[in-house]
């Protein structure tokens, strides 16, 4: 049962008025006045178009915006459904804003959403980020239908990616989750999400909410927890992903630290599960997969490579306590390769990650420090990957990622081996 104390009295009052619902859609916000209107109207049109018979509620947990986001949220109204659809909603369309105090954070927002889902006995929930620029009403259907009509518990998004977009997810998080948890989940960090009320209640009961989770950690935690607790997962194709990218500025190091930290944390939590697991399976994919010509990413390839080289040398004393001597030697050799021959082999990359994961588990050094030592190596692999696939098309890149995923699977025993190796001895 949800703890009522985590919900403000006003919020509870609004929920009481809404009563039981079939579908709950959440849009957590914090100062999103520029994008919130578009997102809310897209959701409203989507609900009207695809779920006009269901009871729906749109909830906005707000982290104390000062730019009037909640007011905009409340007042957005689709004036003329006739211009957009032939349908008009049959039922009252509910909108609830729930400001929470304290540090704006996803865990607070999601917790209040899940509590609401529990209290309102929602059958299906969907969560949308407030700053998506490419959202369409169809997304509502894509994320909710598999739950509402097909009985899935978690709908993870699938995007059309630009060629080298999202390499941390595609080259580390996704293949590692696939290899360890046995479910090939493409976007474990995607912020659009569909989930069943049952799963929301299950999440609420976990004692994760008092802990400090990072921004991207919750998505990973939710996905992996759903796998571990044997819920039904699927993916739904949403099209190209374009975000108002203010939060993903240039802080690669910070993002790597948060995302990978969350993943490693989950590995600790689910140790008993993934160690016994073998093989992996793809998830059912909903939605028509279309392709749009996307502007290619442009970036400073030289810069990334040079950064890798210099950083590895500077961090040797720290890497020494994380990596095995052999791996460290190999990494240092890679760093010394000439531009043309530069190549960070998949096998070495996987071994690097696994050794980091094991070291993180054993806390050989402060975990935060450990995670900070990873971004330079990530840059090395990225440089190599880009160099290798410079002329490849998107499909070829996908094949490469597939091969990398198999490498992660193949080396899984190595991770299990390292996990508890020399416990205490390296202290």
């Amino acid at each position, binding site marked *: 049962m949800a703890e009522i104390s985590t919900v403000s009295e006003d919020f509870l009052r*609004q929920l009481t*008025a809404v*009563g039981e619902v079939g579908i709950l859609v959440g849009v957590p916000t914090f100062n999103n006045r520029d994008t919130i209107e578009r997102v809310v109207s897209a959701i409203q049109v989507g609900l009207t178009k695809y779920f006009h*018979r269901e009871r729906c509620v749109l909830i906005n947990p707000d982290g104390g915006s000062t730019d009037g986001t909640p007011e905009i949220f409340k007042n957005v109204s689709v004036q003329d459904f006739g211009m957009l659809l032939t*349908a*008009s909603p*049959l*039922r*009252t369309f509910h909108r609830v804003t729930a400001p929470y105090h304290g540090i704006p954070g996803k865990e607070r927002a999601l917790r209040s959403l899940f509590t609401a889902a529990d209290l309102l006995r929602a059958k299906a929930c969907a969560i949308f980020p407030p700053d998506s620029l490419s959202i369409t009403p169809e997304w509502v259907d894509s994320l909710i239908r598999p739950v509402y009509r097909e009985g899935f518990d978690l709908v993870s998004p699938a995007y059309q990616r630009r060629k080298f977009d999202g390499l941390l997810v595609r080259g580390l998080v996704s293949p590692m989750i696939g290899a360890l948890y046995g479910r090939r989940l493409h976007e474990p960090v995607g912020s659009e999400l569909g989930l069943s009320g049952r799963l929301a209640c299950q999440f609420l009961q976990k004692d994760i909410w008092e802990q400090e989770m990072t921004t991207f950690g919750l998505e990973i935690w939710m996905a992996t927890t759903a796998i571990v607790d044997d819920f039904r997962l699927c993916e739904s194709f949403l099209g190209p992903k374009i975000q108002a990218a203010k939060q993903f500025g240039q802080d690669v190091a910070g993002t790597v630290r948060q995302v990978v930290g969350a993943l490693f944390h989950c590995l600790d939590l689910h140790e008993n599960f993934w160690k016994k697991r073998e093989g992996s399976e793809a998830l059912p994919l909903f939605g028509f997969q279309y392709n749009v010509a996307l502007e290619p990413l442009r970036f400073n390839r030289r810069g990334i490579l040079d950064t890798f080289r210099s950083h590895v040398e500077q961090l040797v004393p720290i890497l020494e306590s994380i990596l095995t001597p052999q791996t460290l030697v190999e990494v240092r050799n890679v760093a010394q390769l000439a531009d043309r021959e530069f190549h960070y082999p998949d096998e070495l990359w996987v071994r690097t990650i696994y050794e980091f994961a094991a070291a993180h588990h054993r806390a050989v050094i402060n975990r935060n420090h450990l995670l900070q030592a990873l971004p330079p190596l990530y840059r090395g692999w990225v440089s190599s990957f880009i160099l290798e696939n410079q002329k490849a098309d998107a499909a070829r890149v996908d094949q490469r990622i597939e091969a990398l995923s198999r490498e992660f699977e193949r080396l899984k025993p190595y991770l299990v081996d390292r996990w508890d190796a020399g416990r205490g001895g390296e202290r």
Partner: protein
Amino acid sequence: MPSDPLWYKDAVIYELHVRGFYDADGNGTGEFRGLTLKLDYLADLGVSAIWLLPFYPSPLRDDGYDISDYTNIHPAYGALDDFKMFLEEAHRRGLRVITELVLNHTSDQHPWFQEARSSRNNARRDWYVWSDLIERYKKARIIFTDTELSNWAWDPVSKSHYWHRFFSHQPDLNYDNPAVFEAVWGVMKFWLDLGVDGLRLDAVPYLVEREGTACENLPETHEVLKRLRRRVDEHFSEKMLLAEANQWPKDVRQYFGVGDECHMAFHFPLMPRMFMAIKLEDRKPIVDILRNTPEIPDVCQWGIFLRNHDELTLEMVTDEERDYMYDEFAPEKRAQLNLGIRRRLAPLMEGDRRRIELMNGLLMSMPGSPILYYGDEIGMGDNIYLGDRNGVRTPMQWSGGWNAGFSSADPEQLYSPIISNPVYGYQAINVESQRRYDHSLLSWMKRLIRLRKSTRVFGRGTMEILTPQNHRVLAYLRELGSERILMVCNLSSQAQAAELDLRRWKGSVPIEMFGSNLFPPIGDLPYLLTLGPYQFYWFRLRRL
């Protein structure tokens, strides 16, 4: 009978068919003598007016709406004297009588049409609408799309086409001919002279045709109605005209004129939305349609109903709403007819007493004069295996005895089989058994009607919709002078709580009307009410 020119504003109207009410002579069909015998029942029920479906001589190809003689009674229902007797007895009990006036068309068996078609030179030729070409009035839609291909029909006798908006055996009268107007006025005067209190004007939007228009709701049609009304006002007092126009409220509004056209008109779109609201458990459909209902002149009134002799019509809803209604209320194809659902109230509410009560509670407290369909006061069922709309026109169930106490004829001789299934059959549902118990539906309906009639607020008061946050709760305030009645109802199948903003009436005490119990006085805080499944309250707000 007390005199009151605005009697229809407070009326509770009972709709019935002479054929199906009571058969006194044992031939299997009800007649006026039988109906007269049952007037005490209607007076006891508490209704104030009776609306009779057509009872005129007719080939009966459209349930009597195809009239072959306007000023007589169909022999199966008795003679004109029987009608006079019935009228007198009804008036003696304070019951007013409303009859049908089909003024758009006649039967093709009517002498007028027979004369008109006899030759192109006949004096009555121009009483109908004739044409050699069928290209005229192309923009008019065809109403009975299932049976008719054109609004023109070929007359082999006079070798010409005649105009008809409904069935081809119902030629439309030509209101551009002053003689027709006078003839129709003659018919009206005949019945009003006899003492009939009100006339239901059938199919009024289609009286006049004009090229290039849809031939509906034309100004010329309104002009005809206004002239009829003037005649009525010149010759009579306390008479009422009720327009049947299945249109959106803003179009129906025109039939009230500025109080110089019809006194009453049916509110068609409200009815399906009451059903929809209770199924969706959401007040939105009702609130939406009430907000889109225009104001009407003070002397006018809406006619509101839950069910009638036709199907539950779904013309005045959107496609999604219609699909939803079909899926929820008529999942079996057989229950659907034209654009509607041919079922009675009780089966639509799945026999749930709480829902039947709530629907009646809504009906009785909405702005307008409620119309009850015979049998619904005891929760009668229907028979969707009978053709057309006959499933909702089965004999009234008076008792658990022979032929449900309706007739002493052989059961095979009845004009329609009696409902006999274990749930809604006459052994289970009949007047006799329900009269015995205080808590039967019939007894409850009597109390409801009595309450409705205890005040003029329901018929004449203003309406203000309140908006508690809980959308499963519908609340509105009816107000007339210093009298205020608050209606709060729970449209949901589960218990609900609602907080009403009643600060404007701070200090008033709500008195629950059914039991006259006092509720806590209204203060500064939102007024909290809890309601059980499908429960409703009527509160009189009394300032102490």
